[in-house]
């Protein structure tokens, strides 16, 4: 090897070591890049590995990852992989739409369009009245319109997450929710079991306690709400929620999403309580929820509403 090559090699070695400990200035980094451009050999990362191993050998005690930061990182991961999967998902969506277009649009298209139009109309009225958006959740309960490009059934699991209006959750005694048929009952976990499994498998799932919101129906009610942003699943647990007359009124969940206009919370589904000491109810969010700021349960007329008058807010759980 020539003297020139020896010098170049020695310089590369020096730069590699300095790079591994952050000792390179911007100018030296440019030197390294130039050298790499002219040298036939690629500099290896073995000094970075050595520094990493030494770091692990020397490092001080660990600090736990802050919970809020963990949620943001998980959201970043979701966005990252969603972007990677987007082309495949688009094709999959086209395939599914081809297979199901007639019955789905026939059955639900009109409902979605009507709901969106109605909500948009109400939204305009509220905008005129409010003048400006509030920075905090104001419990103006107007459901978020379901844009076609954003509906839940556009994401990865269309077979199980199709958005459709359905019957409310019927809550049975003993903290479980009745299932529509016996076969499913033997196979699927109860909401209480599913909630426990979610908590066990998702250490970063959001969990907040309910607080009474002033309505007499919420007095003494305790429990919590659990929400996993990654899987877009969650459960409400209530202790002491009074039985509702399902023919006249029903409970409805609203989710205030920090990534949406907070005047338009996401409809989290309608449900009933049977007066059991403790009940667990799955959340049926009609839209993807990015950053839940608050969960509010109201009492509405049977079947639920698109726009809540917020006359009877039962309980609230704020996420921060």
């Amino acid at each position, binding site marked *: 090897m020539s003297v020139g090559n020896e010098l170049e090699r020695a310089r590369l070695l020096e730069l590699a070591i300095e790079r*591994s400990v952050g*000792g390179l200035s911007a100018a030296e980094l440019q030197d390294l890049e130039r050298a790499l451009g002219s040298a036939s050999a690629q500099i290896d990362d*073995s000094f970075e590995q050595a520094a*990493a191993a030494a770091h692990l050998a020397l490092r001080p*005690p660990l600090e*736990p990852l802050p919970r809020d*930061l963990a949620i943001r990182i*998980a959201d970043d991961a979701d966005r*990252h*992989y969603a972007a990677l999967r987007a082309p495949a998902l688009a094709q999959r969506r086209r395939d599914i739409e081809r297979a199901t277009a007639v019955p789905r649009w026939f059955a639900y298209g009109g409902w979605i369009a009507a709901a969106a139009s109605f909500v948009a109309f109400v939204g305009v009225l509220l905008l005129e009245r409010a003048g400006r958006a509030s920075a905090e959740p104001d419990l103006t309960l107007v459901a978020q319109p379901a844009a076609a490009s954003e509906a839940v059934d556009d994401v990865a699991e269309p077979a199980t997450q199709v958005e459709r209006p359905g019957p409310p959750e019927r809550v049975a005694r003993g903290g479980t929710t009745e299932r529509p048929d016996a076969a499913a009952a033997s196979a699927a976990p109860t909401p209480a079991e599913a909630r426990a499994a979610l908590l066990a498998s998702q250490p970063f799932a959001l969990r907040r306690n309910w607080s009474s919101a002033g309505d007499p129906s919420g007095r003494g009610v305790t429990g919590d709400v659990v929400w996993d942003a990654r899987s877009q699943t969650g459960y409400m647990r209530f202790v002491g929620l009074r039985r509702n007359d399902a023919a006249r009124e029903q409970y409805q969940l609203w989710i205030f999403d920090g990534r949406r206009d907070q005047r338009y919370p996401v409809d989290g589904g309608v449900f009933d309580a049977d007066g059991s000491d403790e009940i667990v109810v799955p959340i049926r969010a009609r839209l993807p929820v990015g950053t839940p700021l608050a969960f509010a349960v109201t009492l509405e007329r049977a079947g639920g509403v698109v726009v809540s008058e917020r006359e009877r807010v039962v309980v609230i759980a704020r996420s921060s």
Partner: protein
Amino acid sequence: MEPVPEPVLPDVARGERAAVQRCMARYGALIWSIARRFSPTAADAEDATQEIFLDLWRSAARFDASRGSERVFVTMIARRRLIDRMRSQKSRREHEVGGLDDEAAQVGIDARIDRCAEADIARAALEELPQEQRKVIQLSIVDGLSHGEIAARSGLPLGTVKTLIRRGLIRVRQALGEVRT
């Protein structure tokens, strides 16, 4: 020694959500702790940690278990990002670590936590070094101090600091059997 868990990065590379969760649970504290040491503020450390995890998602497919442990790979990704950030920010944090005699700088070689084969090898190699050299390496690698900062704090000449670090790293690299010419 506790058993080394199965690598999670191959599953992360396939975009498996559960693997992402396992990866965060397994390495979240490690990455966050490194970021805290290298960052001037908690907010800066949070930004850095998010960037590191994004780098990890992007780099997961490059992990090769035959070249080293997953923990070292993750640490390398984290350090690389943090060093880039420090270089680009140009303004260094006011390090809270003191001189060579301070307790903070004497955080020992902790054999109880975070065991992996390379860390054990590196630990053995570092234990053979003089105490002064080991402290200099710690200030550089763990605390992220520049050579000039270490020289100012230790009273050692800048050239000596560079030499101690360089020789120490070469020793660790040799011990790891990673000598490449």
